[in-house]
């Protein structure tokens, strides 16, 4: 009963015409910046903060939230069409989505991403409404030891994520981990591998690295390979998913939603972690794992569902505890403070119209997004028919603007150029950039939590096995490792791989 009452308060706030309008503006803007590679929700929300001064608190939060989850929809568009993840969380979508586009199935890929996201958004909104308070308590059980084990599991699992050589995947993860080391060591404050350059004394900027290894490298490769580009344009057969496509996406979307909702609540790389994890799970349980990396529908549906679910549930700790799980949530906290609302455990009680208004607006916003994005699919697909000589300078310009907008630092553009070259060399060597990026993101978190857990336990290694949650995660990691290296399974995979090839 309480829930219905709360939802009623929420809908009365979110269905207010002004709020509806700003919700629409938010998701529209979110879609646009999601489509533009590099320009992320963080920079956009930061730039728009001053505009929200004059708005009512719930109106401004509804709009800002719309930008965030709207970007999750838009981010997959460029990932699928030009192998350039608009958002870091769509990095995995690029793997199979771009392959689908190259096979002329860009339309179905985009539609699947939008529908999967919508389903996930709907479920996650309900989860936020029902479980926001108890779930936050659960997330707090995650201490440094649990984080370490979770990230360890993520890294092990990502070995299975890459298709082809396990050795190359391991090498890429290690390279990513090493790049992740660049910057200030959190524990001692010492600088590592910074070469005396102040601009990287904190860390290498994620956006620059991602745009470099994914985007710039892809452009370089495309420019070299005239014939590849033509393929994508000629073979567009149909824009909408077939009945068979729908059948194939149901399971992955369901699993992606579940996984994304769970991982989104955790502080840190929630949305990114969810999409990577969802992809890995799908590949693991798939009857045709060899199809992954070659345009598998599950490889698009699951991570897209997961990142949207994760984006939504990451509001839980922010709304209920006032603790931001990522940079975007930190901006939301800032927006609330500017509005005179102290984010924290009291918001739900003192500001019910804001708390529930934002939650219900998420569902409305998702509905708007799916209505906005499905008709656009045809338009986006036609983007592929633009001559590449026109398209790639435009992409480069938008990437540069996006990267620059993060820190207003020209050095970040040099970083992009450097990692573009790195990415190009890796493509030439037949190495996947996805594990590199994963290692880059998770490496610092892994180290930080390992050392933090060890500090708190006073150097006692058993802490990872005596805490039940942590032990469970490590056991799962071990199982995954065994599966990867089990000769029979490997042999079977190689066999299938060859038959298909």
């Amino acid at each position, binding site marked *: 009963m309480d829930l219905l009452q709360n939802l009623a308060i929420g809908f009365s706030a979110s269905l207010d015409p002004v709020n509806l309008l700003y919700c629409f503006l938010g998701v529209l803007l979110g879609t646009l910046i999601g489509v533009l590679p590099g320009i992320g929700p*963080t920079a956009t929300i930061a730039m728009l903060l001053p505009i929200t001064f004059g708005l009512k608190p719930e109106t401004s939060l509804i709009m800002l939230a719309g930008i965030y989850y709207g970007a999750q929809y838009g981010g997959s568009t460029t990932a699928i069409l030009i192998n350039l993840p608009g958002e870091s969380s769509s990095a995995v979508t690029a793997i199979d989505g771009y392959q689908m586009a190259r096979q002329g199935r860009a339309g179905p890929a985009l539609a699947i991403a939008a529908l999967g996201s919508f389903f996930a958004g709907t479920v996650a909104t309900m989860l936020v409404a029902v479980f926001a308070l108890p779930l936050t308590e659960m997330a707090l059980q995650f201490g440094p030891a649990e984080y370490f084990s979770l990230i360890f599991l993520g890294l092990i699992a990502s070995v299975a994520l890459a298709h082809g050589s396990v050795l190359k995947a391991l090498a890429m993860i290690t390279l990513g981990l090493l790049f992740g080391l660049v910057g200030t060591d959190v524990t001692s*404050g010492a600088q590592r591998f910074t070469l005396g350059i102040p601009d990287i004394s904190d860390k290498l900027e994620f956006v620059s690295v991602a745009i470099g290894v994914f985007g710039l490298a892809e452009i370089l490769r495309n420019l070299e390979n005239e014939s590849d580009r033509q393929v994508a344009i000629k073979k567009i057969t149909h824009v909408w998913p077939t009945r068979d496509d729908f059948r194939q996406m149901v399971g992955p979307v369901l699993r992606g939603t579940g996984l994304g909702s769970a991982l989104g609540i955790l502080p840190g790389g929630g949305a990114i972690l969810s999409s990577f994890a969802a992809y890995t799970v799908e590949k693991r349980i798939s009857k045709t794992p060899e199809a992954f990396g070659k345009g598998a529908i599950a490889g698009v549906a699951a991570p897209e569902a997961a990142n949207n679910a994760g984006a939504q549930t990451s509001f839980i700790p922010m709304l209920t505890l006032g603790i931001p799980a990522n940079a975007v949530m930190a901006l939301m906290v800032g927006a609330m403070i500017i509005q005179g609302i*102290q984010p924290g455990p009291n918001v739900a009680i003192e500001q019910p119209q804001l708390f529930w208004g934002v939650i219900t607006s998420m569902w409305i916003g998702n509905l708007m997004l799916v209505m906005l994005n499905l008709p656009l699919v045809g338009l986006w697909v036609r983007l592929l028919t633009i001559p590449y000589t026109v398209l790639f300078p435009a992409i480069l310009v938008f990437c540069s603007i996006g990267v620059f907008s993060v820190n207003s630092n020209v050095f970040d553009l040099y970083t992009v150029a450097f990692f573009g070259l790195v990415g190009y060399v890796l493509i030439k060597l037949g190495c996947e950039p996805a594990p590199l990026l994963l290692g880059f993101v998770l490496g610092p978190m892994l180290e930080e939590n390992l050392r933090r857990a060890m500090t708190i336990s006073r150097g006692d290694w058993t802490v990872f096995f005596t805490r039940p949650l942590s032990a469970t995660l490590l056991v799962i990691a071990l199982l995954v490792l065994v599966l990867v290296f089990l000769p029979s399974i490997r042999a079977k995979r190689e066999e299938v791989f060859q038959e298909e090839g």
Partner: protein
Amino acid sequence: MKNARIVAVVAALMAAAGFSGGAAAEDYPTRPISMVVPFAAGGPTDTVARLVAESMSRDLGQQILVENVGGAGGTLGASRVAKSDPDGYTLLLHHIGMATSAVLYRKLPYDTLNAFEYVGLVTEVPMTIVARSDFEPADLKGLIDYVKTNKDKVTLANAGVGAASHLCGMLFMSKIGEQLTTVPYKGTGPAMTDLVGKQVDFMCDQTTNTTNQIKGGKIKVYATTTKDRVASLPDVPTAAEAGLQDFEVGIWHGVYAPKGTPPEITAKLSAALQKALKDPLVVKRFADLGTAPSTEAEATPEGLKTKLTSEIERWRPVITAAGVYAD
């Protein structure tokens, strides 16, 4: 004749230059001003900057745009401003880190005391000594005793080298004469998460971050680090009241301009700052953050200069004794 003409032309040119310079300062500002915040958007310093910038914009008749140039403990943004044109169109809003980075970094790309003109102090955000909700000690005295007898078990969290919580923690350890195990985090958010989640024992952090968790009963509070009690936490004793003398730490914020900015312009900015600090909206939002605007005497170039100089001298021995460097 010829010489006289040249002299006249030069004089005229100089007059023109002088005049136009004067006019520039007089008309200032004629275009939007950029206020660099050397930290990420959404953080406490960013919030302070945006509130003040909004109010000052109305007074100056030109928009002040907040630009986040994060990195290297705030020194990247400060160095950007130090190298900017001294025309009043690039300002810096920095906090206590302006003083402490002068000691924490052995090599800075700018000379802290000589690279800037001063506009004024903005606010001094109080700090609180807080602990996980089930931490045994009942009060600050109890905490000090407990920490001394259990120093092998206690963990003190902070938000990373050079962070406010790190400085306050260092001061606390030097006051009680003990070295404790510190657990550094990347920023206050994750540190607070682990404090609420009872993974670490205690920390010292700004009211901006702690007030709500305190009011929501998620963490325990021992004392504030202020001279007088904090208005938003009237039941919390000051450190002195709770038995720890000379433990005043505040995260003060100041506005700076590049060296060589004309005094007319910094005066204009100071006046706008002083007005903004009396703006009821700013006062109210500051109160929500658990802080108060600086006084009119502090919100002046001299006020800020005095603060910066004295703070560098105050933190130098603490940081040097702890042997911590950020580079």
